[in-house]
């Protein structure tokens, strides 16, 4: 965990005071709605279909139990008793009252949580691997750099009015869990031949109506130069990004229109003029930030404790363990994913009671730490393997042990037309129906890894382009229709999915997905050929035939 010092605390308290003043000026009419809109967006407040929606940042997906309890408190006191975890390591509350927002922010500020820049045309929450610091084989903990970037991007005096929103993601593992290739700047931490830490920098990724996979702009930027290089990119974008058309304003369009070589040259010229300036991070500064991350005092524990051997006779436990428990870098410990995708539930939601209970379990079993992943699940990052049976029992009681992590019912979905004023179609009921169709664990397990992503409109908050199966809601003559893509992925081999054919009506979506899955089961050459691999090998055609032959 990163511990805020008095400077970090002072800044977020000052931000709360500023926002309180802005709300006051809006309520008194001193600010027009147009003027206030920008200001509230800079602090994570949207006006949705029914109410204001409030988005709170969980930087690089790390939460303490104390912070999670405070989120539960906000859900209970200011909202309707639940929150929704998003694909960018944020949590959203859907029913907040404008006049109470400053108090909610003040409550969160007490535990070092804020909503700065969780929306608006600025640099958004810096996201990272939810297994950062605990994944085996990781080069080093990317959160040190995430925190440096968090501070650097917070209330930046030059880049708070960009052409459009701007997102960073960082990974330090070979397997990318942070989806860095669909971000404006994706950073892959690695070491050069001299063993020095640096980053492969990728730019211009993003989804929305014109999706692009990010391209490498520089294969190694030294850690010392990270902030100056990032500033050079932001400056080029701030000056040359399009502002005439909101749909062409993301940096991906600038990178695409200039071409990556020309864009890289512009950035390089800018960077050469500022390299070595006051943004340079010397080792002392990096160490200073690193020193404020604390790590658990792990015990020396066996990989196969008696508790685990005994529990192995329980088929339900084993099913969950095989699905939701991952290897930890320290022997005797495990990373446990908590599925927020129960059968029939809206993906990514947690009740205030669940949040409190998870905080208690984190204190008991995970050194008080919780992680939030972009797949809209939570994780306990430091669980002793001997505690797994007891933890499982507790999670099962809370409805948080659905053994469907990375399986077909582990669906990413945006709030859709049930909440969102931009949506054309519903997302949540589609997800709920699919989880019912694939509720049988043996079948889901037979199918294997398969990500379904659902967006209720072209803005793609549900990342449909990079779902193994992507579902996009559109509106046709006042009715909800859905376009289906297959073959997308958001990992280190990120790709955009391909459309299988004409959009289908709401009532047929689940049937179509079942057809696609059946086709895959018939077409795969061996049980461990993943859905995306079969699609890669055969293309869209056999799936298209299967889906549309009888429609």
């Amino acid at each position, binding site marked *: 965990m990163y511990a805020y*010092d008095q*400077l*970090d605390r*002072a*800044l977020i308290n*000052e931000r709360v*005071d*500023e926002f309180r003043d*802005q709300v006051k000026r809006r309520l008194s009419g*001193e600010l027009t709605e147009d*003027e206030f809109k*920008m*200001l509230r967006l800079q602090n994570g407040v949207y006006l949705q279909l029914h109410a204001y929606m409030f988005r709170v940042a969980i930087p690089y997906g790390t939460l303490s139990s104390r912070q999670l309890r405070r989120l539960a408190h906000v859900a209970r006191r200011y909202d309707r008793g639940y929150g929704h975890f998003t694909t960018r390591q944020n949590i959203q509350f859907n029913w907040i009252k404008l006049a109470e927002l400053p108090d909610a922010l003040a409550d969160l500020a007490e535990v070092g949580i804020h909503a700065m820049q969780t929306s608006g*045309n600025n640099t958004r929450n810096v996201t990272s691997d939810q297994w950062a610091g605990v994944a085996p084989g990781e080069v080093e903990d990317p959160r040190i750099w995430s925190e440096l970037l968090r*501070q*650097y991007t*917070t*209330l*930046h*005096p*030059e*880049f*708070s*009015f*960009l052409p459009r929103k701007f997102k960073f993601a960082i990974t330090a593992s070979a397997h990318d869990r942070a989806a860095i290739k669909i971000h404006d700047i994706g950073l892959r931490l690695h070491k050069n031949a001299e063993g020095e830490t640096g980053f492969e920098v990728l730019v211009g990724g993003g989804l929305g109506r014109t999706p692009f996979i990010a391209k490498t702009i520089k294969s190694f930027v030294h850690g010392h130069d990270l902030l100056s290089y990032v500033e050079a990119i932001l*400056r080029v974008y*701030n*000056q040359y990004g399009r*502002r005439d058309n909101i749909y062409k304003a993301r940096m991906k369009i600038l990178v695409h229109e200039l071409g990556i070589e020309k864009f890289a040259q512009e950035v390089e010229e800018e960077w050469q*003029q*500022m390299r070595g*300036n*006051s*943004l340079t991070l010397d080792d*002392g*500064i990096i160490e*200073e*930030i690193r020193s404020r991350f604390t790590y658990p005092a792990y015990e020396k524990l066996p990989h196969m404790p008696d508790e685990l051997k005994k529990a192995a006779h329980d088929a339900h436990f084993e099913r969950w363990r095989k699905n939701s428990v991952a290897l930890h870098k320290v022997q005797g410990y495990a990373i446990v994913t908590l599925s927020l995708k129960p059968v029939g539930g809206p993906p990514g939601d947690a009740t205030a009671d669940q949040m409190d209970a998870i905080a208690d379990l984190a204190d008991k079993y995970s050194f008080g730490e919780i992680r939030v992943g972009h797949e809209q699940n939570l994780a306990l990052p430091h669980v002793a393997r001997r505690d797994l049976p007891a933890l499982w029992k507790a999670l099962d009681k809370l409805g948080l042990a659905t053994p469907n992590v990375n399986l077909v019912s582990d669906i990413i979905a945006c709030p859709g037309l049930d909440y969102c004023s931009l949506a054309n179609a519903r997302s949540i009921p589609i997800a709920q129906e699919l989880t019912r169709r694939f509720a049988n664990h043996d079948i889901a397990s037979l199918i294997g890894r398969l990500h379904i992503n659902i967006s209720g409109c072209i803005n793609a908050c549900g990342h449909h382009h990079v779902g193994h199966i992507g579902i996009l809601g559109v509106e046709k003559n006042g009715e909800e229709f859905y376009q289906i893509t297959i073959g997308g992925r958001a990992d280190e081999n990120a790709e955009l999915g391909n459309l299988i054919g004409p959009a289908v009506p709401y009532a047929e979506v689940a049937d179509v997905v079942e057809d696609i899955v059946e086709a895959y089961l018939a077409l795969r050459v061996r049980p461990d050929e993943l859905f995306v691999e079969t699609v890669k090998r055969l293309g869209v055609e056999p799936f298209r035939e299967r889906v549309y032959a009888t429609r």
Partner: protein
Amino acid sequence: MPLVKNGKITDDVFAVVADDAEIPEDGALIISAARFLENPEVLSRRVGRTGVIWPNNRDLDDLVPYLDRLALVALVFPTFRDGRAYSQARLLRERYGYHGEMRATGQVLRDQFLFMTRAGFDAFEVKKPADAEAFAGTVQRYSVFYQPTGDGRLTALHRRMLSRHSERANQ
């Protein structure tokens, strides 16, 4: 539209010259970029003080050679959402060493004052009188800054390093 300079509401000593009006040899004047570039050598050597209003989509290269002869550069925020002039301001101050008055014009509102100050602006044509009156309080709202800019405020990172060094010195 009130002008805030040195933190206070001030009378504007500069007059804006319309593009079709004659430019007198003396008096403090603000000239458009297009007009200025028709004859920059002569205009930048006027007897009176000269200011130029520079659009936010125009490269600074054409302006840079004359900076040390200009008394004022006005940058433009066509709407408060358009942040290009923040980059121009920092470049003028931090890269090209411009020391004259740098004025924010256009849709200049209270909640931008501190960003603008940090980017190097020292004069503000403020849209609403109430915002102009609130200037001094608004720019003092924050005590912590994460980024180094040309305004000289110490960043949080550097303050932490300094306090580490002083702790060590006291040991």
